């Protein structure tokens, strides 16, 4: 598999990278882990004129707590998340999702931010970040702005980023109350993209549900937030009835299509099953039951 011709730069600072990307025009692309971009280039589905490799830029590879948020830099690999104590302790939904992303080879290189920028509706991080209410920070020659993930993901492989913007980090609000989260993924084999994925985040408030986040992978043109399901859970009493109702509403929110992985009907049913199961598990983690 042989890609078409392209130019390549590997700047050592964010400033240089921003400048190189802006100078490269509309066909220039950021190269992070390369786990989505390189395969597309090898198939000649993508033929960027210039790659701006951000891997040599220092300071982008950290996971850190900062003022009630978790900051995840643009070079944090899926596997860094797998190994993070901070994540394991505070954000079980991320901890559950990370080891389910592809296989060890891809996890060693692929990045959380790159996955969000790629906007594949079958990407797992999109759902996790929607459920958590995260936002990304984007840098361009005209400055820096934050974009909620719900506004970043526009359509299949389409984000609201301008061609000259580089995402420098994703910021995840750390839950302040008792909380739990979980990610469930149905895949045909290890390393496969999801047939269906479900991310849930539950915060408990005095025995009732405070905030609930539910988002779905691979059942729509982008990662889908199950807004109705989130709404009925907020303020409800946690338990099988509420979780089953949320499952039904989430299945309604899904917009799956028939394909080799299964029928739309099937995928809806899996959404329903998974939302129920994931909420039950999240509730357990939050210390709600047992």
């Amino acid at each position: 598999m042989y890609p078409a011709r392209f130019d390549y730069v590997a700047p050592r600072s964010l400033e240089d990278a921003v400048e190189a990307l802006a100078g490269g025009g509309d066909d220039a692309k950021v190269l992070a882990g390369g786990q989505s971009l390189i395969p597309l280039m090898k198939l000649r589905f993508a033929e960027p004129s210039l790659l701006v490799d951000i891997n040599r830029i220092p300071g982008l590879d950290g996971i850190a707590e900062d003022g009630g948020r978790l900051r995840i830099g643009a070079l944090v690999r899926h596997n860094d998340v797998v190994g993070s104590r901070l994540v394991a302790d505070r954000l079980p939904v991320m901890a559950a999702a990370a080891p389910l992303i592809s296989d060890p080879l891809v996890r060693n290189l692929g990045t959380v931010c790159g996955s969000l920028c790629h906007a594949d509706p079958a990407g797992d991080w999109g759902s996790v970040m929607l459920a958590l209410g995260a936002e990304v920070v984007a840098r361009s020659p005209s400055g820096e702005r934050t974009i909620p993930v719900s506004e970043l993901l526009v359509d299949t492989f389409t984000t609201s980023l301008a061609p000259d913007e580089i995402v420098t980090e994703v910021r995840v609000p750390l839950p302040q109350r008792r909380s739990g989260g979980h990610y469930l993924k149905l895949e045909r084999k290890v390393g496969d993209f999801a047939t269906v994925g479900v991310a849930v985040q539950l915060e408990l408030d005095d025995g009732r549900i405070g905030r609930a986040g539910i988002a779905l992978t691979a059942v729509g043109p982008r990662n889908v937030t199950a807004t109705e399901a989130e709404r009925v859970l907020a303020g409800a009493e946690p338990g099988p009835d509420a979780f089953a109702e949320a499952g039904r509403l989430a299945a309604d929110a899904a917009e799956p299509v028939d394909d080799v992985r299964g029928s739309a009907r099937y995928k809806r049913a899996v959404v329903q099953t998974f939302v129920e199961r994931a909420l039950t598990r999240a509730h357990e983690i939050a210390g709600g039951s047992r």
Partner: protein
Amino acid sequence: MAVAEQERTVRGIGHSLRRHEDDRFIRGKGTYVDDIVLPGMLHMAILRSPLAHARIVSIDTSKAQAAEGVVAVITGADLAAHNLAWMPTLSGDTQAVFATDKVRFQGQEVAAVVAEDPYLARDALQLIDVEYDPLPALVDPHKALEPDAVLIRDDKEGQTDNRCYHWEAGDPRATDEAFARADVVVTLDTHYPRCHPSPMETCGIVADVNQATGQATLHMTSQAPHAHRTLFAMVAGLPEQNIRIKTPDIGGGFGNKVPIYPGYVAATAASLLLGRPVKWIEDRSENLISTGFARDFHMHGELALTRDGEMLGLRVRLVSDNGAFYADAQPSKCRAGLFHIVTGSYALPAAHVVADGAYTNKAPGGVAYRCSFRVTEASFLIERLVHNAAIELGLDPAELRRRNFIRPEQFPYTSATGFVYDSGNYEAALDLALQQVGYDDLREEQRRARAEGRLLGIGIASFTEVVGAGNHKDYDIAGIKMFDSAELRVHPTGKAILKIGVQTQGQGHETTFAQIVASELGIPPEDVLVQYGDTDNVPYGLGTYASRSTPTAGAATAVISRKLRDKARQIAAHLLEVSEEDLEWDTGRFSVKGAPDRAVTIQDVALAAYTNMPEGLEAGLEGVHYYDPPNMTFPFGTYVVVVEVDPGTGDWKVLRVVAVDDCGVRINPMIVEGQIHGGLAEGFGIAKMELITFDEDGNCIGSNFTDYLLPTSWETPNFECFATVTPSPHHPLGAKGVGESATVGSPAAYVNAVIDALGHLGVRNIDMPVTSAKVWEAIQQASR
């Protein structure tokens, strides 16, 4: 020295010797075709059809010709000028090298660019302009066989429909009579899906034709170098003595490297015309969409039984989807391979098989993917039918098998379709498997689980294979009889070179065959260099596929070793000054009866063969043998798979796999077990995930490894392997082929396990790949 002691020191048959070849593979020191770089070498890339069926209106290569680094652009018209636009297939059909009239499948070869480097070759491909006039694509073989279907093979004189063969086996009258007596007839319609051998190394060639001498050296990925040499001579009209096929290390074949592909022919033609070496290496997608697929059998089976479970007869009607060219690799008399082994392990008095092949707008191939020519489809069908029959009769599936097995005393057993099974003890293998898996306890656990709403299933397959073709009377490939060969040269210092006509692709020939020489001649395996895969160096043979290496060339190795041992005995008698009858052989050593200290070793004899031979005896200790097996070998076994199905998603997990294999005498038990592990993993992949499918326009879905799924070590279950040993009565070592048993036998065990988990709900069939989606749909349908 006691025999056992001597045997142990030479580490011959029965020893789990580490594989000699692994040293270079593990160190990255193997040499594959793509590792070969010759001075002045050019690179070829192939332009493939984006459409499944279309008339070619025009091809404009002018822009590509002018592109940077391009040396030549080759089209079908150019090949036609040298009478090379079409080539024969292994099933007696013809196949387009490059399309001249129509394209008949997506991915078909249309033109090629030869350039100074592989990137430039591919850049130039994008500059070739082909105008197509689309035709309706036929993707369903049943539709293709309908009378008014558009004709795919309008190139063939006299071809008026899309049927590529009709073939029958067995006795229709006897079968009808058996069905008339039946209490119960169990039917099953199932599609064994199109899958792909997917070797790690794709296909490729470095063609090096010397324009001055006419000598063509072809470094290529071939499982059958000699057969390919002869076919090349016939296709290209090159004198056969000028063709040398060299197969370096082959990175897996699994049947994929048995056929001759257009790329080989085109690269050779290019080298001939340009006078420079030309390399062509497929990429992964090209391998998946254009080279030999496997299976794709639509089968209808009917099993007739009495109420108490006696099998009376079997009827099979099948349609095979052969793609655009009938290019199955199989013995020429067998139009559906050895599918008629479909009566399996059972004493079925009557059987009738009717098979029809259909041309469709899909890639050709029909290769025996780790299988002895369609044995896999046959084994799957009978083992699935038996499971369903057990459900219908309310019998335990193990018990139903037991009641109908061919009994040990019935061998040699002539099956209803005409095979003569050499040996077997099916019940012993079943018993061992049931005992190892703890069958009765498992059935109890299954009952308990069901009560809790959990879906546990136990699947059994008691398969029988037929492997190791020939004999020469019944089996040939394109007219070449299926014998095989071994040439053994023992050097004066007692070291040896063994040259074999079969071709390893990872099976461990360099170790196994050396161990045969060790046992037969007493030369330690590390002193035996095994060579293969250079047609100028090794004797003629038909190659490695269909589990034939040990049954044929393994036997040839044993026979030639024994012939040399006979000669060695003459020399030993001369050295010890006794008569031959007074000598005793003890692996590697001749001693005088009654005076064990008077002895010479095989190494002593080897030296004498060149330095001190007896008067009148030919010098040297060398010889060659061509072995024509009297019959096939019939390995068998029982696999038991335990699964649990998640009712919420339909996903299923394998909890246990117990495998009992009987391949007769095991030459290297570790290598045998490795072969079984690999086959069980491939069987799992086929049962659960592997599928090449097409949309209604004939677009191939499954052209890379994110769509065509292969199991990895992560999801592949753990295997528990056991053995029984029933030697082949006609093989000199008592060995049978084993490279394919597990791919052949295991898919039915996995599927039976899932069906077993759902049987009480009324589910009777789910076609492979048994995806979670299909399982879930089946549960919904059943509970409606």
